[in-house]
């Protein structure tokens, strides 16, 4: 190990300063969210007499509790579908060596490249014809279709690097292929499943454009959509807006700080595959 030198110390100060600069907006957010509307203190100064009033207004008027449940439902169901479908598809694609398997793989990879903006409008028409506009299932359907190619891609890469011995032993012992998958292969996939879950959960939870199209005006909203509606209502009252924004961030932040080690690894590792 290299020694801790004066130069390292200088670097340490520079990096801490850079982080503080980057964290500054979050300081303002937290600071202002506790401030009463009539306060005349500078935005930059710490709030002298903090109040929870803004939080009460935001929570009661924005329907954030409901939005929280909606977002959780969409995220959990979508991620489960994505994991099950992609893992099964990837298992088949990685182990079958016939020509059709290669063709299917290429088709799936094309799906990886297409931006969702292209499918979004035709799908909007389809979903409207199915009478699913305003339903959370429209989102589940959309995200599952959208994200399966990427997840399959990650799983195939991982499976190709995984030895086939265990599954062959399971098959010899009389497992059906599906049993072998459930009992042997899927548990082996755990590291990459973690990555798939994290990447997709963050994406689904944060997506705004799709709920804006598919849920707007229906009374059902996910977290980003509810926050957006709320901000529009209170645009003249900074402090309440900040409280609402903070409530909107809390779920992600809590999960992030609880699992940051895995999340950071998932982001860098999953994308390296």
């Amino acid at each position, binding site marked *: 190990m290299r020694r801790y030198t004066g130069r390292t110390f200088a670097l340490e100060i520079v990096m801490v300063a850079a982080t503080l600069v980057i964290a500054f907006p979050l300081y303002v957010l937290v600071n202002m969210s506790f401030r009463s509307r009539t306060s005349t203190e500078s935005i930059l100064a710490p709030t002298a007499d903090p109040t929870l009033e803004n939080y009460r207004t935001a929570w009661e008027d924005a329907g954030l509790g409901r939005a929280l449940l909606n977002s959780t439902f969409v995220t959990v169901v979508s991620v489960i579908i994505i994991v099950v479908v992609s893992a099964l598809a990837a298992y088949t694609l990685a182990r079958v060596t016939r020509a059709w398997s290669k063709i299917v793989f290429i088709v799936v990879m094309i799906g990886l490249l297409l931006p969702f903006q*292209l499918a979004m409008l035709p799908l909007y028409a389809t979903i409207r014809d199915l009478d699913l506009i305003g339903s959370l299932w429209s989102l589940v359907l959309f995200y599952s279709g959208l994200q399966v190619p990427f997840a399959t891609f990650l799983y195939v890469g991982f499976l190709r690097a995984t030895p086939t011995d265990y599954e062959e032993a399971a098959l010899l012992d009389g497992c059906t292929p599906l049993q072998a998958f459930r009992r042997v292969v899927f548990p082996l996939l755990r590291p990459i499943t973690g990555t798939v879950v994290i990447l997709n959960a963050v994406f689904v939870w944060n997506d705004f*454009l799709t709920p804006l199209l598919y849920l707007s005006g229906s009374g059902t909203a996910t977290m980003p959509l509810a926050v957006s509606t709320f901000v529009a209502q209170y645009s003249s009252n900074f402090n309440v807006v900040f409280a609402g924004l903070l409530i909107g961030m809390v779920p992600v932040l809590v999960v992030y700080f609880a699992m940051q080690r895995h999340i950071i690894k998932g982001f860098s590792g999953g994308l390296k595959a």
Partner: protein
Amino acid sequence: MLIPSGRGAILAFTDWNGISPSWEWIGLDNFVRLWETDVARDAVVRTIVIAVSIMFVQNAIGLLLALGVNSQIKSRNLLRVFLFAPAVLTPVVIAYLWRNLLAPTGALNELLDAVGLDGLQREWLGDSDTAMWAIIGIVVWQFAGYSMVIFLAGLQSIPTDVYEAAALDGAGPVRRFFSIDLPLLAPAITINLMLSIIGGIKLFDQVYATTGGGPANSTETLSTLIYRFAFNSGQFSFAIALAVVLTVLVAIFAFAQYAILRRGERRAS
């Protein structure tokens, strides 16, 4: 996903309004109109400028941060966690936060005033000269940590004996950066550039939440125009034609970068 995308590609050549059961084939008319409509043509150019700017700035900052937190500093683990945190937050919520920070009486202008730079104060998002750059700044602020994490993963996969050999040969930090880090980071660079440029081309949330495309259309991107044409003026097939342009841009940039960077990676290895 492929079927609606295919339908999208076909509908772009029709005059469908999104509701009526029938439509007519109008060939390239939508694309001709796109070229002749200033707002649309400007949005295409602007989208490219935004994506390329985000790509350069975000990755330059991300790389510097990665080098910083990959060093021997004591706070490195803590800093990594905090620098990456913005990247998991909901972009549209972050954009609303920045809209308030950048408002005429917002925190940035207060800060400039506090340090005596009040000459620099302006209505960042309400001025068509600065609005686009402000949005680029927001995106970079949020995702520089994302680039950092990928660079960091790349840096940590470099075996330490390479550095030791370089140190024995008397290479200084700058020399080490250009002769070791940069070439061996090639895969991380490829991924980072691709992700940031594709993200930039699809940019929607940040624009919608901050300026809504204004002032005077000066921040309109392809995605916000798609939304506007489809849902505010009912020009469904025209919006889909814009989505086709967006898809083509993504494909061009992805292939070009992949080809160029792959060649670079091979030369480096």
